[in-house]
């Protein structure tokens, strides 16, 4: 098994005839993903270059194909609308690649689409290696195996996965959850899924500065996954002090959000933190060996 996505998941692409949408659709199909069609309003009835049916609406696409998953490539002003359309059509799993979605749009989307799992926005999507790829990840870097990976960053994910694959550590599912302030699916949401996935034997968490998602993940591992080998990486130790949400934000989130706080939280939870992405495979192998 794997989480969120497997060989049988039926996927549609919203914005399938756009430049990015069509390019990445062909890559997904090439990877073996079960893409069953796509949506571009006004182009219903046409076929893509690869022969996939195009529909005018998500509802029409779902009715015709039975799709449960969608991958969204639409410009930022229309991303929320695309998510609502998917939700209304009964889609249960939506990956929103779009970067630059207004944060208030996402606030409202996540507050009103209970029952639909959203990955992103501003994320590279996810992959269950050997089974299916939804999003923009470079599939050839990945290898099927038993490590689950969750990351807030796109390119850093590939970096880490590349290292795992070279070290012979294949992956069950790799989820790029996105780096925006408001995202549909958090580290903890993914941990919960991995916990119930028989294929996943170990987990890598790639966090970065800002927010408290890493602290929450550390607490979850400590409280609910004591036996599972987990390794973390926290990017941005040398990052410039970002313009924060201001003091009011700090009051809400307490003193969390710094690299120090995140590293401390992971260590306190018994999760080793790699200094460099390249150290992750060794740390993971060590944890796997000691857990057997």
């Amino acid at each position, binding site marked *: 098994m794997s989480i969120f996505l497997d060989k049988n998941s039926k996927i549609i692409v919203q914005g399938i005839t756009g430049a990015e949408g069509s390019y990445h659709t062909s890559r997904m199909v090439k990877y073996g993903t079960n893409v069953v069609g796509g949506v571009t309003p006004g182009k219903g009835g046409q076929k893509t270059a690869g022969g996939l049916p195009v529909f005018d609406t998500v509802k029409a696409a779902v009715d015709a194909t039975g799709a449960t998953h969608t991958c969204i490539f639409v410009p930022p002003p229309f991303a929320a609308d695309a998510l609502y359309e998917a939700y209304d059509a009964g889609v249960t799993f939506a990956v929103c690649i779009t970067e630059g979605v207004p944060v208030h749009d996402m606030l409202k989307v996540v507050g*009103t689409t209970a029952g639909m799992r959203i990955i992103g926005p501003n994320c590279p999507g996810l992959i269950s290696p050997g089974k299916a790829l939804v999003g923009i990840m470079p599939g050839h870097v990945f290898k099927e195996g038993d490590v689950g990976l969750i990351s807030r960053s796109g390119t*850093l994910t590939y970096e880490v996965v590349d290292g795992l694959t070279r070290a012979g550590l294949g992956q069950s599912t790799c989820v790029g959850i996105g780096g925006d302030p408001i995202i549909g699916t958090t580290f903890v949401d993914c941990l919960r899924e991995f916990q119930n996935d028989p294929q996943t034997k170990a987990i890598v968490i790639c966090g970065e500065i800002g927010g408290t998602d890493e602290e929450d993940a550390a607490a979850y591992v400590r409280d609910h996954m004591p036996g599972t080998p987990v390794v973390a990486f926290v990017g941005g130790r040398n990052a410039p002090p970002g313009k924060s949400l201001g003091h009011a934000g700090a009051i809400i989130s307490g003193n969390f959000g710094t690299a120090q706080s995140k590293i401390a939280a992971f260590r306190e939870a018994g999760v080793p933190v790699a200094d460099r992405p390249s150290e992750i495979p060794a740390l993971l192998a060590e944890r796997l060996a000691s857990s057997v």
Partner: protein
Amino acid sequence: MNLMEYQGKELFRRAGIPVPQSRHAIAPDDVAEFLNGVAGEWVVKAQVLMGGRGKAGKIKFAKGAAEGRSVSEEILATPMPPNRQNPAGEPIKSLLVEEKLPITKEAYCAITIDRSTKKPAIIVSRFGGMDIEEVSEKHPESIAKFFVDTAIGYSPFVGRELAFEAGLDPAFRKQFPAILGALYDVFFRYGAKLVEINPLALTTDGRVYASDAKVELDDDALFRNPEFAEWQQALPLDEDERLAAESGLGIRNFRRFDGTVGTMANGAGLAMATMDAVSFAGGKVANFLDVGGGANAERVRKCYELVVNSTDAKVLFINIFGGITRGDEVARGIVEALKTTTSRRIPLVIRLTGTNEEEGRRILAEAGMTPVETMDEGAERAVEIAGRTTGQASS
């Protein structure tokens, strides 16, 4: 985008939040003209984004035209002094002249976005006019919070509840739910990441005013309010932001440090990790640069020139891992950039992998460049070229 006080108050005024009578002024003469023949005491405040105006002597009182001109001249004479967040200080470009309110009590309220609950968070305290972080340390019991259900939005009970829980003076209470509702309107209508009134002032005659205004808008939502493009031009960018914008990057995609290893990567996460790698290899980074997606020749050339011309970089470590960015495009960009640039040449260390990496490597090889295999290797190579330093920027 952070708004100046006068801009924030304009949004407050539109939403029906009571704000003091005021005039935005550029020059001391404007202030003098405005105060000519006007009775009472007025406040002249520097319009800057930095905090600490009071301590820096950038808020002064004045009666009449002559005094108005002289305090304005004093305020404009020097920029805001530097602090930790703003090591370059901040130039003062304009002033706000405002009626001096007869204040008896000061409170605090703000609305921001809470990542953890994924909801708007409202914060209220009966202590206003001081740093809210200080309040939260000294008087934690005075702080009340509410997380708004976005399906419902703001409803007046929220204001009533917060007023009671924060222990606001009863004189505030009647007006507070409506004022907080109007503040929520500003937050929601303009897509703000933060709206803050500090202090919310109660006057001797029982009226309530927003005595200051802090608004941070979401850059991704600015397109919905075309007028904000003009407002943005009235706002100072810091030097790094200005350089980034001039090079066609997002203003948060570039930041300089005092090291000698230039960096350029695609994606903020990888860019940060690249900096971390340079630090671990014993080098000092010259900059943070996230080149973003779609790194074509023009983009790569501009980024190359940005690093070369604005930092002390002796080498540029380009670290590209292709997902949406295609390796062949980046490689062509690099080759093309080096052909066309008129800036000085510094050595490049290139790490290129991911989507279309073979094609990318072939293009680089044709141009006589040999990419490194891993990020660590690239960092080591770059630090070797720049010369090892003793201090690490890393924690």
